[in-house]
């Protein structure tokens, strides 16, 4: 697919924006030389031409064959709007796990119907949705014959009017659907298998988000670290954690979009997003600005608009976090290594947390770092990075695992922008003080460790430090301890030492909440003033 000897492009085509990067050999290895993003309506060609022009203007020798850039290989990834599915089942109890599995796989479940008489009109209306991609009929083994027959009669009759609509039968309680030709039917067993089978009905529609997950897994192998990747885009959010054994968990969530489509008509959802906004505007103004962010996502990306966008990104990360924990509680033993004994608090932070997606294109790096720490709260230390050129998605489309790892290994220094490190250590009681000692190259700086606060320690990119926390109370950093030490690296946001609780609770009163948010965020935006 790519050749180490020639330049190539990565292109990530999203629903709202397009990002491109130019990769070329330099000093014996491939490096990311330039990247840019634009509204998707601009298209790839102007971006690629611009990248080549910028690099050539800086150093013509780097791209000796620049005139033939249109022939260079392109590694392209595309993310589509979530496929839409209607789930029909004999009971809500049957549909609940199925709906959870579909929504965690990136589907938009537009309706769940049980085929009762009162729902016949709604069933017909839902299945006749012109934008529907899939109908799933869940009839588990041992279902009551009458209930199953009544459901299949209604659903099959309506589905017979949509000959192009794929139908998946989930469970062993039915082998056919009346009125639906057998060749149209796909069969799944449990919820997970049904989701896997359903993907065949919408080939490629979820491939872009899977590619991101694959890259996270490959990166974990390359770095031999536990890596977590989170991608917030216009249509969905993706979160994946990988370690030495491959992918540990992943979710793709339509609700994890920057401003989900449902928010246009759901004031409560808009208000939940607005809770993260430090802007003092009236609530109805904020709601309309958020609606505009949904329908015209590229606009309003500077000044207050960047802050509002990051508030929306925080809310999206919060929804991903909630779904992640919800999944943890549902799946039980497989998640023991990630959650505490209550199933609520993740045991430890990942070694490396990477942010990606159009949501993080506008805000400055330090502010993005705090947004990650505010929402994906894990006790312990982690390194934060930004996939600023959005290369992880395209690289994940490479089918050859070795080639994927080689490319990631070569690009890791230039494609992952270091945002800094974060130590999340709740536990210090009110009015108590501890000490933070940061040692860089033999020189130690001491700072007070204060409760329920986030402190920013200036630690430039590329600088490593040993950080010790000394507390009169037990700090929770995966284990409980009064004195802990971490090796951290610097970045645009430096080192964030966070003693706030997990999860972060915001005051209900708007003025007080905005004051808190402003106090936490101001140092990171102010430090970024030109």
């Amino acid at each position: 697919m790519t050749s180490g000897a020639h330049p190539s492009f990565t292109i990530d085509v999203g629903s709202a924006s397009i990002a491109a990067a130019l990769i070329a050999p330099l000093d014996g290895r491939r490096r990311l030389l330039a990247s840019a993003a634009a509204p998707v309506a601009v298209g790839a060609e102007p971006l690629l031409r611009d990248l080549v022009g910028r690099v050539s203007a800086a150093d013509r020798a780097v791209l000796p064959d620049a005139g033939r850039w249109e022939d260079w290989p392109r590694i392209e990834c595309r993310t589509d709007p979530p496929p839409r599915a209607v789930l029909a089942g004999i009971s809500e109890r049957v549909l609940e796990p199925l709906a959870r599995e579909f929504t965690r796989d990136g589907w938009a479940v537009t309706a769940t119907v049980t085929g009762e008489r009162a729902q016949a009109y709604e069933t017909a209306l839902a299945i006749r949705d012109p934008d529907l991609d899939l109908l799933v009929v869940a009839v588990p083994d041992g279902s009551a014959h009458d209930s199953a027959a009544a459901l299949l009669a209604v659903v099959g009759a309506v589905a017979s009017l949509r000959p192009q609509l794929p139908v998946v039968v989930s469970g062993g309680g039915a082998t056919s659907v009346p009125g639906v030709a057998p060749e149209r039917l796909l069969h799944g067993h449990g919820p997970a298998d049904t989701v896997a089978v359903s993907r065949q009905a919408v080939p490629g529609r979820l491939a872009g988000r899977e590619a991101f997950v694959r890259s996270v897994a490959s990166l974990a192998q390359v770095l031999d670290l536990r890596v977590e990747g989170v991608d917030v885009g216009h249509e969905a959010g993706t979160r994946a954690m990988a370690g030495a054994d491959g992918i540990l968990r992943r979710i793709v969530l339509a609700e994890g979009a920057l401003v989900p489509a449902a928010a246009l008509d759901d004031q409560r959802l808009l208000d939940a997003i607005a809770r993260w906004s430090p802007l003092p505007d009236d609530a109805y103004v904020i709601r309309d600005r958020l609606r505009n962010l949904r329908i015209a996502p590229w606009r309003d990306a500077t000044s207050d608009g960047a802050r509002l966008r990051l508030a929306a990104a925080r809310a999206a990360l919060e929804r991903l976090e909630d779904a992640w924990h919800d999944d943890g509680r549902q799946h039980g033993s497989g998640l023991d290594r990630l959650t505490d004994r209550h199933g609520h608090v993740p045991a430890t932070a990942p070694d490396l947390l990477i942010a990606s997606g159009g949501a993080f294109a506008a805000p400055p790096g330090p502010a993005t770092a705090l947004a990650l720490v505010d929402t994906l709260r894990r006790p312990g230390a982690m390194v934060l990075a930004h996939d600023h050129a959005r290369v992880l998605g395209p690289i994940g489309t490479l089918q050859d695992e070795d080639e994927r790892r080689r490319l990631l290994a070569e690009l890791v220094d230039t494609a992952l922008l270091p945002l800094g490190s974060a130590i999340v250590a709740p536990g210090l009681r009110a009015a108590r003080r501890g000490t933070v000692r940061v040692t860089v190259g033999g020189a130690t700086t001491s700072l007070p460790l204060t409760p329920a606060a986030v402190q920013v320690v200036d630690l430039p990119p590329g600088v490593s430090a040993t950080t010790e926390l000394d507390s009169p109370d037990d700090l929770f950093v995966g284990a409980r301890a009064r004195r802990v030490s971490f090796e951290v690296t610097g970045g645009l946001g430096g080192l964030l030492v966070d003693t706030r609780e997990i999860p972060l609770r915001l005051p209900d009163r708007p003025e007080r909440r905005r004051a808190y948010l402003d106090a936490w965020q101001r140092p990171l935006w102010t430090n970024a003033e030109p």
Partner: protein
Amino acid sequence: MIGSIAPDRIAPRVMMLSQPVVRIALHPGDRPLVAAGDRVEPGQPVLERLRHAQVAEHGLRGHAMPAPGTTFAGGTAVAGSGRRTLRFDGAGEVVCALPGGHVRAVVSRHLATVESPVDGTVVGLDAAALSLRADGMGVTALIAVGEPACGPLVVAIEGPSAELRGQRIDVRHAGAILVAGSRIDVESLTRARAMGVRGVIVGGVIGTDVHALRASIGRQEASIHASPPFALVVLDGYGKRPIPPDAWEALTQAAGQTVGLATTPPLVLLPSDAAPYAADRSRVRVVSGPYLGRTGRVLEMIGLRRLAGGVYRELARVALDPVVPPGAHDIVELPIAELERHG
């Protein structure tokens, strides 16, 4: 091209579409009055729709099951003949047969018609939707509420940034589509509907007003008597937003002619003899920030710059058109993300 990045890096917005296809979703019980390939004109009934639809069941009494999707008029036989004829109390559509030998249908005694918003051709008809290809042009919009509607176009304001006040809407506008400027409030929308206005085209709208209008339309649908269709089409987003210049130009040219409003996708449908608007692709419009709605011309592409708050943006130097002529051009540096290219 001047400067370090090409002008084509500025996002284009296609305001005008030639011969767009609009879609009307079919509900259970809808009876199409046209077939694929038929010609339609604005205001022509294309669907018969059930109002207050209910689900009803009837014993098949040994008759053959009518095919799902079969539509029937009120009082007509759905199956069988003679004294054992199977009839429902109202018009509707067969949904399915049940295992116990019953047929289930969606029925209603109250019918309404859905009108074509376009002069064009039926290009698709299935159980899910009716698709119509317009002969003329479509002005693209971002939001639409209500049902497809059509009527003579009345430009009711002086300029694209003006606002239409409710007091200026009266019975003379009955049956018309009003161009209402940069914003309309819910009181004016209510008054417009009360005066028989068929639709409103506006640059921006407050989100809560959209909710109020949806609720009002819902309440009206629940009433006994059907009201004429009404549509609100919003060209540029939420809040107060001037009508984009291309759209303003096209709408003022079409004043007095019959136009349509489509909701899927949101479009203003201009008649086939409307002159296509030739957009000047070198011009730009500011779509956010303090210069919202201003138009101008890009003088120079500046490149990547660091702005307040540490945000990096690509900038362009733009000569904004004078607000009140005669006046000097304002020359400003703006992020290209805040610009839209015409055409």
